[in-house]
């Protein structure tokens, strides 16, 4: 992708306005200093204990996600635009979910085939006609955005179930402020430290009907062997709420309680970081020991709120993705602000024929897959790889979707060969309460560390960067 949009430098090679300070700093900083800072960053991350588990490795299951010390900078105007687009999109996704588990007007209107919903494995019949507090289903959404030019942003995928990565967003910032306090203060960066507070306020706004007084919020984790366990402890700690496991919860008479040193204590809102199937052995997988028996019944009776709601995954399904622009116009009567990548559903024979003819230009991935496993990036694959993939595709076409290969923007990144452009994406986190939408300025920037690679997933050699959203200049004048 030689013609990818460079976020730091314009076509003439001079730095874009948002990057002026960072470009000057890079010019003035020798590589040895950057290398020393990178080592210091790694030490800090190890000390904090921010690791993720890799299931395929040997005994040492705790590893660090590589961190790149060069910040990614986003202008205040660009951010304002993104923020409008994200709010719009997540509002539409929530209205879609309410509709899916209600009267399905969007199906009646002929915009989405009923089978795409009812036969979708992410659809939860248990949610039919259940009205969650505030009519909100996806309370914490992570929307993966890529940039292809100065003013074009595409949503690559929506994450409406239990998106992770926000602890990296917060810890990356902590580390950057420690490593580069001067650069940071010169740039007038919008703070992100309010995220845990915003999350807690969002969750508290969702108290169930049976709750009297201040709602008690807990975070439900599958436990310390989960790959995102660090994040669970981090968020519970930052919010000052209990971090519970399924075995800590008891359901009695339509209410949920946790076992404490003083006996049972009532729980009102559960920010759950376990998958739908494991929430309640009585409602979903009977062999689950991660959830609490009776939880769904209590939820249905309004005794407890689950965030995000079970069944929210239907909104982020890759087969549903292509209808999101339709949802925006159908529910909101608005034009989509953020673009959708044209998507070919290989289940459709015409689409399949097109995809097979154009494999060299397309990205093909499993509709239900995640983590960047088992995908083909056509332009980067050899002829033989494409031929092999075509056979797989023909054998199980309904499993796959295909999209044009986007020229993801690049940011300067400190790699073995020095500072070089690498492709990035962005996952901002959108919080939807019963009261309002809250978005922290920034998000998690993921970077493909391999030269030319477009796959940013940490399981595929991706790293992270701190994301600096600049404050609007008039606000910056009054700040420190």
């Amino acid at each position, binding site marked *: 992708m030689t013609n990818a949009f460079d976020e730091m430098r314009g076509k003439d090679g001079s730095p874009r306005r948002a990057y002026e300070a960072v470009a000057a700093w890079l010019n003035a900083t020798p590589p040895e200093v950057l290398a020393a800072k990178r080592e210091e960053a790694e030490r800090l991350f190890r000390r904090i204990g921010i690791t993720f588990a890799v299931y395929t490795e040997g005994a040492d299951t705790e590893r660090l996600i590589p961190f790149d010390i060069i910040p990614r900078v986003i202008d205040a105007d660009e951010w304002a635009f993104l923020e409008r687009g994200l709010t719009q999109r997540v509002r539409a996704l929530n209205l879609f979910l309410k509709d899916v588990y209600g009267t399905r007007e969007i199906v009646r209107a002929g915009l989405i085939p009923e089978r795409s919903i009812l036969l979708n494995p992410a659809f939860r019949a248990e949610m039919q006609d259940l009205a969650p507090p505030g009519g909100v289903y996806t309370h914490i959404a992570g929307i993966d955005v890529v940039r292809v030019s100065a003013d074009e942003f595409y949503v690559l995928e929506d994450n409406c179930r239990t998106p992770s990565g926000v602890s990296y967003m917060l810890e990356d910032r902590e580390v950057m402020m420690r490593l580069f306090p001067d650069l940071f203060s010169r740039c007038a960066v919008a703070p992100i430290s309010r995220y845990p507070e915003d999350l807690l306020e969002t969750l508290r706004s969702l108290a169930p009907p049976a709750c009297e007084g201040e709602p008690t919020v807990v975070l439900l984790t599958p436990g310390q062997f989960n790959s995102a366990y660090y994040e669970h402890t981090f968020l519970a700690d930052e919010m000052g709420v209990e971090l519970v496991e399924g075995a*800590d919860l008891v359901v009695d008479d339509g209410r949920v309680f946790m076992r404490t040193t003083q006996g049972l204590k009532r729980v009102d809102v559960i920010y759950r970081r376990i998958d739908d199937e494991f929430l309640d052995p009585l409602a979903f997988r009977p062999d689950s020991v991660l959830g609490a028996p009776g939880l769904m019944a209590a939820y249905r009776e309004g005794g407890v709120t689950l965030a995000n709601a079970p069944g929210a995954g239907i909104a982020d399904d890759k087969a549903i993705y292509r209808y999101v622009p339709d949802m925006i116009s159908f529910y909101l009567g608005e034009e989509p602000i953020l673009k959708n990548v044209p998507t070919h559903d290989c289940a459709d024979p015409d689409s399949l024929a097109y995809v097979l003819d154009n494999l060299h230009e397309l990205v093909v991935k499993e509709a239900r897959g995640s983590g960047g496993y088992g995908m083909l990036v056509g332009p980067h694959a050899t002829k033989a790889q494409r031929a092999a993939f075509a056979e797989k595709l023909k054998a199980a076409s309904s499993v796959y979707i295909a999209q044009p290969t986007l020229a993801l923007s690049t940011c300067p990144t400190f790699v073995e060969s020095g500072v070089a452009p690498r492709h990035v994406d962005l996952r901002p986190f959108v919080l939807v309460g019963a009261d309002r939408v809250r978005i922290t300025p920034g998000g998690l920037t993921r970077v493909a560390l391999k030269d030319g690679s477009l796959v940013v997933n940490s399981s595929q050699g991706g790293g992270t960067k701190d994301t600096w959203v600049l404050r609007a200049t008039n606000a910056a004048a009054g700040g420190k």
Partner: protein
Amino acid sequence: MLARTADSMFWLARYMERMENVARLLEAAQHMSALSADAAEWQSALVAAGCDQGYALKYDTTTPENVVRYMAADRDNASAILCCLDQARSNARAMRIALTRDMWDAVNEAWLESRSLPPSAFAMENLPHTLDWVKRTATRFRGAYAGTMLRNDVYWFTRLGTFIERADNTARILDVKYHVLLPDYSGVGGMLDYYQWTSILQAVSAVRAYKVVYHGRVTPWNVADLLILRPEMPRSLRSCFDEITENLDRLAEAYGRRGECHRLAGAAASRLRYARIDSIFQQGLHEFLTDSVERTAEIGNEIAKLYLL
């Protein structure tokens, strides 16, 4: 707080304390064995740490190298120093949220360091240096929690873990050597006895404390008095049980209920408060110490029943 949180804090503190005690036992054994060539000191260390049976399954003879390997680094021995640290860190990680940053740093950094220890760290010539590191780690952990934790139930459960473990250890250390303290003990006599008594003091870092309290040469009765009845000695049974009852009382006040653990701890503490060392010797030192180990275990079980399940 969650019952599981309390359980993790309790065991975190126990494992850190146990790790330190094992280090002190090895230190005392190495010191003593420099004076007498036989393996009795190493055997005593195994017994005091409750490791003798596990050791016998693996080794036919007691050699210093094997004892050190078993008590310091053997993954089959749950009380080995490195296993204690693993389990402490695992409990800490399970309950990151209840730990202060300083506590987490103390445990996690030590754990990271332990993973890069060379195999030679436990060779005889490096042992003192490595054991110093272990003691420093435990001290840093206690200092971190004393200095940074809120004085609430999380803290009281952590304290309970520390002192239940310590009471158990002190009683065991004394019991292993109780015979050298008895008046009718007919050992080798002379200087070696003196060193035996001193080694007990050394195993609980009380050599200087003894001098401050008794101002004189070491006698077996005073050693027993110091480690059983002296309230100012931080590793005496008396001190441990004062701490146990105090922390249990605070929990009872905060939660508004008491249980069997309160009764048992109160009984044990008042026995220590009003006992005299000569009557303990008359009734039998060994019986007294065995009884103390059993009572401590019983109190631990009752704490679990009331709060941790």
